[in-house]
């Protein structure tokens, strides 16, 4: 079991309500820290994710500014992370959350920490890999990555021999 009493409170599977809420600066800081821990954990960023900070912020804006809003999920995520840090300390909290969570992402999320994992952590991982992380596995491109004009000197994908511009 991951986390304590708050994390393991049962909640419905649907998005947690938060449509008229706004995230606070502190909540944004904690969410950003969580996002950065992904790159640190899998060592797939050279800029500590700072170079994709604007992409991440745009993602948060899109997920919270339009229905169905994720604000309730993000708020819940911050509270869960806080409890995890209280119980395990910072380093171990993020390690457990990312590498040793014991949560089946395919199952409906029915606790607060499962919501954290499915609606926040998993989606953050996809954003991080799409915008920067994939490069550390020799990739030139990835679903969701915007590389620029296809007429640039550098091809948009790894190309067969003799296929450059």
């Amino acid at each position, binding site marked *: 079991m991951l986390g304590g009493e708050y994390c393991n409170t049962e909640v419905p599977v649907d998005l947690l309500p938060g449509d008229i809420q706004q995230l606070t600066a502190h909540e944004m800081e904690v969410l950003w820290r969580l996002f950065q821990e992904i790159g640190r954990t899998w060592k797939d960023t050279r800029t500590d994710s700072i170079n994709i900070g604007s992409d991440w912020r745009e993602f948060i804006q899109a*997920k919270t500014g339009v229905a169905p809003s994720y604000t309730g999920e993000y708020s819940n995520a911050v509270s869960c992370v806080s409890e995890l840090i209280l119980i395990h300390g910072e380093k171990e909290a993020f390690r457990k959350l990312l590498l040793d969570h014991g949560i089946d992402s395919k199952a409906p999320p029915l606790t607060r920490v499962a919501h954290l994992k499915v609606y926040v952590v*998993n989606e953050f991982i996809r954003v991080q890999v799409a915008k920067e992380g994939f490069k550390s596995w020799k990739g030139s491109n990835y679903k969701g990555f915007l590389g620029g004009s296809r007429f640039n000197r550098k091809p948009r994908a790894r190309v067969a021999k003799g296929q450059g511009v």
Partner: protein
Amino acid sequence: MKRRDFEYVFIGSGVAASTVAKTILENNRLASILILEAGPKVPAQDRRAWWDYVVLDRRPYDYCYDKKGENQSVGKTEWSFDDGRVMMYGGSTVHWGGWCLRFKPEDFQVFSRTGTGADWPISYETLEPYYCRAEEYLSVCGDDKEGWTKRSKPYPLPPFPWTAADGEMIAAFNQLGIKPGKLPIARFRKCMTTGTCKYCPVGARFSGQIALENLLSDGRHTNLEVLHNAPVAKINAASKRRIESVEYLDARTGERYEAHAKNIVVCAGSYETPKLLQVSKSMYYEKGIGNDHDIVGRYISSHAFLIVRGERDHNEEEWFQEFDFPTLMSRTYDTPEMQQDGGKIFLFKDRTRPNVDIAALMIQGMPREEVDKVVRGTRTQELQAFMDDRGLFTNRVSVGRGQNRFGLPQTQIDFTRPPEFRALIDRRLDLMEKVILAMDYKVDPKNKRIRTQSGHHMTSTCRMGKSPEDGVVDENLLVHGTDNLYVCSNAVFPTGSAVNPTLTLTAMSLRLGDHLNAGGT
């Protein structure tokens, strides 16, 4: 029922309707046109929708596909309606891959050459200038040097390069005497290869939706109207020759209308077009408009989709999917000789392989070292093919039970492959397997097969023919026996060739637009 009057009414809002409308409007900016779309309008280039596509693989128009249980397959060959077409503003080019290949000259003469299928009443040479215009309009990126078909103008844009992962298959092609080619695709200059073609964030792939928005945002087109959530129930005839109106429902208000027009063009795709003609019965057309000889809906022609997948146990180059479109193809077996042998095949490498879903491994909680092992481990590659189909009289689209969510009648498909089909498929799969084996991959027999039959590229259900006995429409797409009812859809193709139909449909649409501008029939 309220009456409205127009010069043109188009049924359906896909690439055919928008292309014909555009051609008419370029000639007369004030032309009075109504385009009716049964499905809803889904916002394009919406940032939230795009992010949800990236992280959840969820497209905002997923609900516009046919749903399980909505249609019926009654023939001996199982038919899948899944993901075949999108019922929405802009039509199926909202979800298409943008593959733009020309038919070849022999595709227009299948019956003369083989005694099966049908001949087109026009030739490749007649359509060639329209292919050039269509490629310009759709912004097709292709390789002029390949020479698969004769062309009088170069492609508007250069092709995309072969990917690193294509290299293995190119080597195998060369070994087996198969000529590798670069897939011509519709991508505008602004393509930034985000890998999210099915919902492009920058509108870099042609879609009927973008085409309509451009027509509507041009301030000169003051008499153009496009309605969505407006299914057409029936086409009405005032006499045998004169088709006078369409009945449609404005599903948002519940009001019914009769739109009268000088010319009516049905652009509703290969499923809906024949069904609409079939239900449009009157004292002049007891079996439905254009159906006096009971051929509306018949001769379904639909690609068989062949796959051969191979696997090997190392991926030291760490290849994974980078483009969302295939780049390697070949038309070496798309020839008159293969046509004589029963079926041409168009080969292309599966765009989704090799791939490793790195994010999915991280989501599972796999540490970096383990992810690295998986990425460098098993690699799969897949060669795919479409095979042309000859269309049998007994294979038919007709009206099914009840209505679907958008007010359209459900579809019944009666489709059965002929007995000789299995042996032909096996011969083609054997050819394809040689490629995978030449790449030094292992083939699991379960992965050397055809996919469940579907109607992604279905054609011929209202085919062209010189006479009403062998075609629903004539060479100018006019429904036989009428003066002013046209069909512009994949449905009019007498045969479907081995390649995707949309480029040919766009060419036919441009041709119809010119014909209407010249006064029609």
